[in-house]
């Protein structure tokens, strides 16, 4: 009995650790942000006046929320800057995800089809950029994309262009940055799902009358869809809230919610509105996160 208890005790600790982690580093901070979003900016430290007090009981709490609570949220919907930022973030992240997929799929496919002995090396190469700080890698793109940067010099040298292109501080640079930074997140799950596929499936398709190209579209691609979905969400979800890339590579035209939040938080020092922005961002992302979980579960489902 005692032994059993000890085993179960150990198991609960093991299972409990990740939950504690989530509680301490995700849920509690979220509650704090949520609380701030129901406050009013103030010239104080911290720069908001707590409007909420749960000590008087839930009824009083609800009363307070009714009195003022949603003011910050209402403001978000009245002010075009915010909903345009959300929309623009979703569009930029969506387009960038699509571009990442178009580049990442052939990469993952080529890796999965490469001779077995090469695969480990190719996988290493995909992971290699993670050995350098993300910030430094994004900074490096400034050197490549700026007017007198490497890219323009190279294109001028081979005579493709006669005038240097303006890429830095445009949305194009943001797309390049997102595609570059998040490519491994798409390639890795996709590679895993393609590599697992049995080659005899393609031979069977050919045996039954498919050309190789048709076999790809009717067999390989549908089977890799859970991998595609998992990879796309892994790019899309963080890209929506991305701040560093639009800030360093984007221009004045680049409207992304991460940046708006930054401005609200640091420049305007309006913590309550910034918190409301963050809460809404999370709510928007709940849908793709749930879809991602679903895709992940399907990808892990035993495929024969």
């Amino acid at each position, binding site marked *: 009995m005692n032994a059993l208890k000890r085993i179960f005790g150990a198991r609960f600790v093991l299972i409990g650790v990740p939950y504690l982690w989530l509680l301490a580093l995700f849920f509690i901070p979220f509650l704090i942000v949520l609380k701030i979003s129901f406050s009013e900016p103030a010239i104080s430290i911290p720069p908001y006046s707590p409007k909420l007090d749960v000590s008087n009981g839930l009824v009083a709490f609800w009363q307070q929320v009714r009195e003022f609570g949603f003011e910050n949220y209402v403001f978000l919907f009245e002010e075009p800057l915010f909903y345009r930022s959300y929309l623009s973030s979703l569009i930029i992240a969506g387009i960038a995800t699509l571009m990442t997929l178009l580049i990442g799929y052939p990469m993952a496919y080529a890796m999965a089809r490469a001779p077995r002995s090469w695969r480990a090396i190719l996988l290493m190469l995909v992971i290699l950029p993670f050995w350098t700080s993300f910030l430094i890698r994004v900074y490096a793109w400034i050197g490549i994309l700026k007017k007198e940067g490497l890219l323009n010099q190279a294109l001028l040298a081979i005579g493709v262009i006669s005038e240097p292109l303006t890429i830095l501080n445009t949305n194009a640079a943001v797309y390049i940055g997102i595609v570059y930074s998040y490519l491994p997140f798409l390639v890795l799950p996709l590679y895993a799902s393609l590599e697992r596929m*049995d080659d005899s*499936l393609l031979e069977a398709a050919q045996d039954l009358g498919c050309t190789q190209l048709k076999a790809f579209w009717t067999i390989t691609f549908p089977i890799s869809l859970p991998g595609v979905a998992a990879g796309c969400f892994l790019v899309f979800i963080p890209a929506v809230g991305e701040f560093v890339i639009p800030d360093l590579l984007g221009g004045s035209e680049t409207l992304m919610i991460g940046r708006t939040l930054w401005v609200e938080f640091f420049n305007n020092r309006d913590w309550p509105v910034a918190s409301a922005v963050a809460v809404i961002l999370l709510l928007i992302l709940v849908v793709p996160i749930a879809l991602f979980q679903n895709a992940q579960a399907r990808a892990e489902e035993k495929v024969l």
Partner: protein
Amino acid sequence: MAKTLGPVRNEFSPWTDSDAVPFISFQNVTKRFGDFTAVDDLSLDIYEREFFALLGPSGCGKTTMMRMLAGFDAPTSGSVSLDGTDLTGTPPYRRPVNMMFQSYALFPHMSVEQNIAFGLKQERVPNAEVKARVEEMLSLVKLEAFARRKPHQLSGGQRQRVALARSLAKRPKVLLLDEPLGALDKKLREETQFELMDLQERLGTTFMIVTHDQEEAMTVANRIAVMDKGRIVQIATPAEIYEQPSSRYIADFIGDINLMEGRLTAFSEAGATMQCAGMGPKPEQTLTVQIECDTTGTLSPGDAGWFAMRPEKVRLSQEVPDGIDPANPVNAVEGTIYDIAYLGNVSVYHVKINDGFIIRATQTNATRLVERPLSWEDKVWLYWGADAGILLAS
């Protein structure tokens, strides 16, 4: 003249008809992978409606043969033709041949129905016809109730049936089966073997099966090619392969056999006489074996040869058998029971003769245990008829 083996199955034996045109023909086919030769200058003719088996140990090139017929591998040299057409350069998707894969290769994202319909859809067969054909195939393999299931929701035996139905749906000229029953348990495998034979007879399709299981090959096929290291060592009916193996390799590979080495002393119309040194009634005596066989072959008196005899052809007796001279026996030898393997339906007696050589004799257990008189260390006589064994070259 020696007796030849009569037709064992029905009268279907196009390979004995010199006018018959082969349906599938491998001509001097060689396949190399790098410097490894998987198939070595092999020629093989298979006739329409045959159930043909390629039998051989793992790695002898059976799958490679099949893949060359299906079009997944191209011969390094030589050619493969089907129904009078040279297949060289024809891609797999244009060959009127379908294959059932060793791993089944069912499409995991499609239902049973969709898997079976796949080949027909590629041919743009009208939907109504596809539906009818899928239903026909489902009833053929008795899977009507599982049409909507995905492959991972089926048992191993059911998956095997889906794979079979899928490869038959296009009504191929030839169905290739690569170790089709390898993943099934013994009982199901035996059942399925009979179903396959039944199916082949009903459809009249030419079947070519690859297997390393000799019982399976002998059960289903009407002809077997025994392969070894990329070559064919014998092509014959199951009965011929069993009763008339062409070499010691085949005799040993198929079933159980007693192999005795000796020297040929006399040849006559009726057959050969062989003396096996050290196996006679006394250690210094030879054992005289008379073999009813065709003596026009490559052997002649004075040559060394092998006498090969299946254990079930050897008879056992506690007394000196009728017509045998104990001092100078012919086709008989006395020994001691060394071991008995009781297998239920039969018992295998390992009988040690003079120089320690062991001859195996199988006895059908036609009666219950109590009545079996032989035991360990008993002295017994082994004897056989002149047609019980065959003579093989060294």
